[in-house]
């Protein structure tokens, strides 16, 4: 399974999770885990997703997220989960 972490940060507004999740669902990307907090009006969400179902390459998926970034005016960052596993798990 190719897992990726999608982090979404920026000023809180209505419908952030919905919009990101809808986009992912359109690309057939399954959400495995989700955590979200708001600190001082600052929205931080982390999603672990499974990329195997998507028919797009990594950079294409990242490009598809661009309209969501623009619409929500939030930073959306996607990176392979392996880097966190490598660093924090033996």
């Amino acid at each position, binding site marked *: 399974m190719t897992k990726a972490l999608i982090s979404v940060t920026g000023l809180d507004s209505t419908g952030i999770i919905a919009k990101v999740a809808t986009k992912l669902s359109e690309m057939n990307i399954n959400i495995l*885990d989700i*955590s979200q907090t708001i600190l001082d009006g600052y929205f931080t969400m*982390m999603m672990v997703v499974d990329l195997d179902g998507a028919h797009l390459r990594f950079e294409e998926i990242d490009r598809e997220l661009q309209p969501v970034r623009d619409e929500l005016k939030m930073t959306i960052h996607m*990176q392979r989960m392996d880097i966190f596993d490598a660093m924090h798990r033996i």
Partner: protein
Amino acid sequence: MIETGEILQTMRMIQEENFDIRTITLGINLLDCSEPEADRCADRVYDKICYTARNLVHTGEEIEKEFGIPIVNKRISVTPISMIAQGDPVPIARALDRAAREVGVNFLGGYSALMHKGATNADERLLASIPQVLSETNLLCSSVNVASTRAGINMNAVREMGQIIKKTAAMTASSDGLGCAKLVVFANAVEDNPFMAGAFCGVGEPECAINVGVSGPGVVKVALESVKGQPFDVVAETIKRTAFKITRVGQLVAREASRRLNIPFGIVDLSLAPTPARGDSVAHILTEMGLEYAGAPGTTAALALLNDAVKKGGIMASNHVGGLSGAFIPVSEDIGMIEAAAAGALSLEKLEAMTCVCSVGLDMIAIPGETPAETISGIIADEAAIGMINNKTTAVRVIPAVGKKAGDTVEFGGLLGHAPVMPVNSFRNEAFINRGGRIPAPLHSMRN
């Protein structure tokens, strides 16, 4: 499952603490390109490099994007050119520079000669061509091994290298002697070093290999900020833990690059390599331990602890460790070292002492343009002696700044940084250097 705190820690290391993969270096064997006719040999070299490294830069960028970790440099190291150049090596040098530009790497190392015991005719031709080659090419790096623990010190080569460094500085005077920043003199050079300017692909290496150098002095410095005032046991443990994490990412990138390029994984170099950027300094790790500047009494001990802890932490994180592995202490490439030299806290002699306990040697040090060739040779001989006796790699990369004296500044730009010109001991040594010959290899027992 990875916890949010862990994810944030990784992100902070990359975004705020300058953690990066310093280099993916592709080692390429060129022995099969050797031809009596120089131009034909140059063509074969060019073709082989362009073919083997065709996907290197693109793949590096792909990994960078997918894993969210910057890979600062993509580089190539090749078989020491004196081993394949049967005639004039200069056309091969030009082909190497062209090939490096064609595949998009930022440096190519291996314009090298291994002459710790003696010189072949090809070694002599290559040495003589170094000043011209480094002044005419942009991406080519050169290194010469003049000593080893098993062979002793080739003092003829040491004498010659003093002159070659002077000549290279003179021929690249308009760029503050930049040519000398691309030239290293080694003792006990390693065959799988991914770092420039000393990378080459040794004869014991496979057809090609991926070698990766990690970095992250900023990460270590920040980690030590959380253990202020605590005993050295805690300092060492903190560095080990941090080095482990850094190296695990290096291993991941190396494995991924190797898989995507279908080129065997060689080694991860467990290094702390600084850049001139603030927050990316090895010297600032030493000051974080409690020294006012790098160079203050205690610096050698601090560096010894750092170097050893980096290796201990890193070694379990990678299945093959190699290269130079340790902390680098270049002067012009480290803001903390620049500050220390400018404040008068750091002398050439203290740097020499520091090289006894760390990764390499006297690195990126600007010296007065007037410094005689014999003095440079003397510096090389001293450094080689430290390497030879202590069974470690040492190196000299000094830059005589033409027309400048101690206290002036030289500017190389980019990763190479800037540096104050450091004073050099001016007592004479011509009669010593002009002896030539070989300093015999040391005894390998009774090691006190």
